[in-house]
């Protein structure tokens, strides 16, 4: 596989990534033309620094301004795995699929991972593993929420219960419950 697959990471939301594609960001990124991208190297704290070594290639490889995905010469193969489509609400999911920059007649493909598990107990267990990893994952979101509001300890974990509850009717999975103190 060496030399056959080149890899670049894209950093951003779906919206940003798909816009990048639609504006021709993938142009010239086939194997032959695959040199360094307009590379940003990420420092360990997650901030972005422009790699000085890439500045010249930056000029050469920055997509032209024509917002035309049609200029991508090679087929585009989108992978959307992990049943992530399930994160969308009904209606939004179809809208998202429709928004994908895939071109009919150009050999593009879409690979979707989809989950149709209907076993409630299995689903709830999947998000409440014995080792408590998912629990930590979700509770970390509370810390993150507090941080966003200016105080990391705002949502004190001890006041929250972790639950993994699947609503088969609504096909929704809910996490977290707030513990109300008795007697105020």
């Amino acid at each position, binding site marked *: 596989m060496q030399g056959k697959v080149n890899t670049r990471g894209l950093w951003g939301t779906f919206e940003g990534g798909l816009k990048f594609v639609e504006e021709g960001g993938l142009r010239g990124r086939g194997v032959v033309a695959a040199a360094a991208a307009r590379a940003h190297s990420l420092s360990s704290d997650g901030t972005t620094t422009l790699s000085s070594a890439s500045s010249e290639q930056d000029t050469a490889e920055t997509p032209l301004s024509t917002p035309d995905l049609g200029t991508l010469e090679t087929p585009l193969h989108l992978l959307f795995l992990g049943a992530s489509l399930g994160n969308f609400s009904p209606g939004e999911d179809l809208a998202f699929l429709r928004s994908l920059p895939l071109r009919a007649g150009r050999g593009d493909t879409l690979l979707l991972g989809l989950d149709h598990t209907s076993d409630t107990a299995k689903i709830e267990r999947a998000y409440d593993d014995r080792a408590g990893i998912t629990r930590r994952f979700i509770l970390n979101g509370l810390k993150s*929420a507090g941080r966003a509001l200016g105080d990391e300890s705002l949502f004190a974990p001890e006041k929250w219960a972790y639950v993994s509850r699947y609503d088969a009717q609504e096909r929704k999975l809910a996490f977290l419950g707030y513990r109300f103190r008795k007697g105020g």
Partner: protein
Amino acid sequence: MSAHIIDVRLDNKSSNGEINVRDEIVKGLSHPAGQKTLPQLLLYDEEGLRIYDEITTQADEYYVFPAEEALLKRHANDIVHIMQGRHENKDNDPIEGVVLELGAGYVHQFQGTAQSAPVFPCLPFMYFPLGCVFLALELHALSGWISDGTGRQIKTTFTQSSVFIPFVTQTSDASPSSHIKQFIAQDTAHSFCALKDVAFTNVYYLLCVGLGETRAGAHPRSTRGITRWA
């Protein structure tokens, strides 16, 4: 191979969830009891991404990841056949392509050897994992898009609890440049109905949609060795 990360974040910071997350938190918590939400974005900070990695590798109960991994391995050749499309009958003619994975997770520590890449051993692909953060703190375990609204039955063989359904489209030559929005809206909308109408239960599956090839000499092909409908 060195890792390169391309920053594709938008200029509009709210689109990246960078400034309006506070509003989203307040809004989500203002919902009536039982309907309160927090933005899913909050889960994917540095620590969250690290823990998520643990979930996929260490949480045995999280069936989604191994189910998908098994399918990718088992059907790697099927998938590649569909991706190769028009080239499948040519003599080992390698084609270039761009593989873009939506939501590849921890790009901050991206090392240039993406997990999905080995699935495509024979194609000189450019692989783009797109690390994303998105949406609300809920998940619909069921997502489905592949029933046949025209009354045709899906004929495919189920093995164990997994199934791979290649879906090779027969796009009309009239719309070589149309995007999937037209593709879904016109050509094959009937095939993208909600899966709840189909009697699949307890399966994890991969759906591979090939959007066809309408260049000169191209015509719809069967895909060897795998069940196919459409």
